[in-house]
């Protein structure tokens, strides 16, 4: 039985994986396909996208028209259950308590974690992104190069299914060909960007998202991913056949009942479970990695949230994939006489160098897009096209007041009307009501566009988590305390976003909804809002200056690994999930090598 309880787990396992999201899911997949017996512990409940995804439900079927509430922070139909900015009974502390320097932390207590609702944007880090310090002297280099990770990007893209296009642009790599699915057709507002962006020397590329624009090639991909392993090939081919291509409807963030996009629960876990090597305990809140007298990890302690009992599970290897900050929390709470400052923390760097993504947005209204004929523009649910960072040469020549770039996530179109579509409409209508209001709604519907800048962050000493000395969660586990301060580079980058987006909207003949923000402090979204937090168990070349090594293995405990975004020593503008998966696969291959050599 793959879903087990604390009392009927199968004795000891080869590997315990904490967390079932992108990092944990990928590790379970890679290890189980090679015959490793894995126990996965997930803090939230069992979750089944096939029966629980509200794919075609319309807002009038939901309370409050599906509006955001404190119970469902991204709307009633968002795929996240038992999660959000606040999880009842699981507080955290944010210091100092003032606007601009607090941090909000999105969690999802459910099988598959945050992969169930994420945006599916899947961009590769480029060569510069792994060696930023070598390029401009700031932050930290990774102890690995793009070439080390590229084969794993290839494999992850083929496994999960990512659409995109070829590119030869600087630091914007694509695979060798054949790893990406075809991109979706652009919609009208995308063509608008494709017309006007070149006037600013801004490139527009096909978007890249983990959405199946056609069925996966189940005949050739399994052989490429699992050479010589016919059982794994058969299991993967079967899993791929069960996934449907995109239906060109309903937001991905609700979850996908037909598995047309990537969620750990629809892509990583089914084949891992089909091997018979994976057991999963849900409602298992892990709080400590236990260590034997030899200084090696021998298991984890967790609270069974359904019974309140404290349990212990044992294994030869422990992998933390609980999310960057939650994994740091587990390590800091794993104190013993051998490790009085927490486990893996001889450097004192567990929890340090937490990073997020710079976010800033400008929206506008475009007269050219008014009163269009009816068009189905649900398309791929966004990012049919995107803009990669384009000013590398200017940065290298120190012509910009910030060292690292951003990409642009752009959107528009005649999407399904929501409760907010015509809120605050007076800036266009002058306050109309009556028949004129209905005419205005018809006229302006579909004529809005939005630019979201998503930028790189240079690590700084002011952004970290530690354990709050007083506050505990409902399980009695000490909670995290966040410390946050954007650097000036990030703030200036956000201003550049604002000014650029405003200029492009005006060139399009449009009006910005509110004036572009040129105050650096005001232009940037607060920490955590982008839900891209990484770092806290950063990897590096030396034990004194990092928590994990080039294999995502803790320096202090050789059989303890980190599979989530915690290992990132730098957060490029690229969304982190694809890189988390590539690094988790690479880490898992390393664990397999060590197991075969009987080193763990």
């Amino acid at each position: 039985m793959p879903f087990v309880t604390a009392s009927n787990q199968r004795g000891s396992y080869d590997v315990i994986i904490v967390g079932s999201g992108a990092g944990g899911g990928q590790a379970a997949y890679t290890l189980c396909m090679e015959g490793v017996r894995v126990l996965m512990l997930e803090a939230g409940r069992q979750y089944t996208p096939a029966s629980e995804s509200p794919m075609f439900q319309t807002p009038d079927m939901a309370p409050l028209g599906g509006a955001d509430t404190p119970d469902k922070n991204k709307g009633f139909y968002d795929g996240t259950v038992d999660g959000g900015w606040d999880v009842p009974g699981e507080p955290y502390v944010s210091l100092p308590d003032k606007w601009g320097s607090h941090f909000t932390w999105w969690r999802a207590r459910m099988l598959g974690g945050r992969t169930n609702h994420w945006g599916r944007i899947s961009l590769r880090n480029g060569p510069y992104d792994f060696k930023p310090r070598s390029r401009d002297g700031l932050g930290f280099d990774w102890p690995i190069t793009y070439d080390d990770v590229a084969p794993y990007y290839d494999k992850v893209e083929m496994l999960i299914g990512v659409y995109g296009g070829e590119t030869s642009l600087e630091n914007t790599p694509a695979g060798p060909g054949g790893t990406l699915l075809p991109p979706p057709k652009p919609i009208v507002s995308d063509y608008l960007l494709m017309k006007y962006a070149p006037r600013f020397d801004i490139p527009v590329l096909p978007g890249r998202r983990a959405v199946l624009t056609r069925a996966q090639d189940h005949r050739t991909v399994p052989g490429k991913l699992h050479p010589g392993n016919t059982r794994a090939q058969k299991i993967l081919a079967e899993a791929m056949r069960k996934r449907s291509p995109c239906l060109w409807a309903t937001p991905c963030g609700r979850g996908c009942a037909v598995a047309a996009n990537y969620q750990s629960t629809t892509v990583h876990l089914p084949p891992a479970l089909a091997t018979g090597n994976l057991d999963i305990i849900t409602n298992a809140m892990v709080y400590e990695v236990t260590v034997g007298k030899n200084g090696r990890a021998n298991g984890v302690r967790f609270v069974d949230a359904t019974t309140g009992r404290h349990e212990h599970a044992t294994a030869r290897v422990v992998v933390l994939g609980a999310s960057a900050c939650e994994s740091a929390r587990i390590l800091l709470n794993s104190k013993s006489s051998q490790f009085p400052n927490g486990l893996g923390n001889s450097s004192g760097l567990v929890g340090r160098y937490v990073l997020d993504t710079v976010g800033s947005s400008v929206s506008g209204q475009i007269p050219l897009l008014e009163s269009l004929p009816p068009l189905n523009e649900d398309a791929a649910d966004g990012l049919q096209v995107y803009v990669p960072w384009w000013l590398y040469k200017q940065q290298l020549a120190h012509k910009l007041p910030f060292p690292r770039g951003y990409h642009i996530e752009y959107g528009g179109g005649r999407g399904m009307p929501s409760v907010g579509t015509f809120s605050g409409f007076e800036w266009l209508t002058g306050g109309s009501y009556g028949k004129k209001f209905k005419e205005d709604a018809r006229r302006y519907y579909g004529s809005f566009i939005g630019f979201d800048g998503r930028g790189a962050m240079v690590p700084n000493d002011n952004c970290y988590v530690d354990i709050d000395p007083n506050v505990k969660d409902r399980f009695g586990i000490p909670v995290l305390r966040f410390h946050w301060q954007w650097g000036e580079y990030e703030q200036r980058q956000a201003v550049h976003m604002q000014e650029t987006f405003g200029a492009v909207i005006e060139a399009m003949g449009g009006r910005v909804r509110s004036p572009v923000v040129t105050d650096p402090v005001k232009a940037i979204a607060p920490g955590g809002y982008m839900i891209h937090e990484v770092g806290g168990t950063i990897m590096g070349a030396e034990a004194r200056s990092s928590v994990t090594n080039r294999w995502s293995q803790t320096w202090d405990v050789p059989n303890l690994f980190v599979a989530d975004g915690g290992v990132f020593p730098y957060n490029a503008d690229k969304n982190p999930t694809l890189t988390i998966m590539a690094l988790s696969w690479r880490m898992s291959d390393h664990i397999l090598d060590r197991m075969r050599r009987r080193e763990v």
Partner: protein
Amino acid sequence: MTDRRTTIKLVLAAAAAMPALRARANYNDNLEPGASPPGNLRQFEPTMRGYGPDPDLIKAYERGAFWPLTMNAQQRQLAAALSDLIIPADEHSPAASAVGVVDFLDEWISAPYPQQREDRDTVLQGFTWLDGEARHRFEQPFAKLHEAKQRTICDPICNASRAPTDLQRPAQFFATYRNLTAAGFYTTLAGRKDLQYIGNVALTHFDGPPVELLKKLGLA
């Protein structure tokens, strides 16, 4: 508990964080860095039961499925009259009240969440002002007035940026009420049809816009 401005900022920022891109407000629109941030200790303590963090997402809900509707008959009459003044029947679609917008509004202002409680105060105080104004000027409740008289009352408050100082609160009420009426109306099937929204159907392939349209727009 977070105040309303902070809630709005959080909500808009949350929307901005979603890469699923649709036309929507920009978090910067309401960003006021001097304002009070969320509480030091982040923990939501509901004062009354909402639908919780794990509701059944599959079933279709009746209005008031999670908390009782609270408007009285007089308030519902006023709500219908004002909704229909904002969204009347025309050749494209029925009036707001004909497609359940009063129930939507009632559910909204009866909900236990901070934003909705704030809107409840705004709406009910606005109702009192509106009816008071109607009785004072025309000796009848607002709902009984002919449209021309209703407009005499509403014209000065339909745009907050132009409303005189002493009518700022009624103007804020009218803006909120119009937002909610539009929210209720355009999320119904009738509202979607009015806008000629034709998505939310499964397709085997997606072809993009017709070339003729792109040419006409100068985008081909």
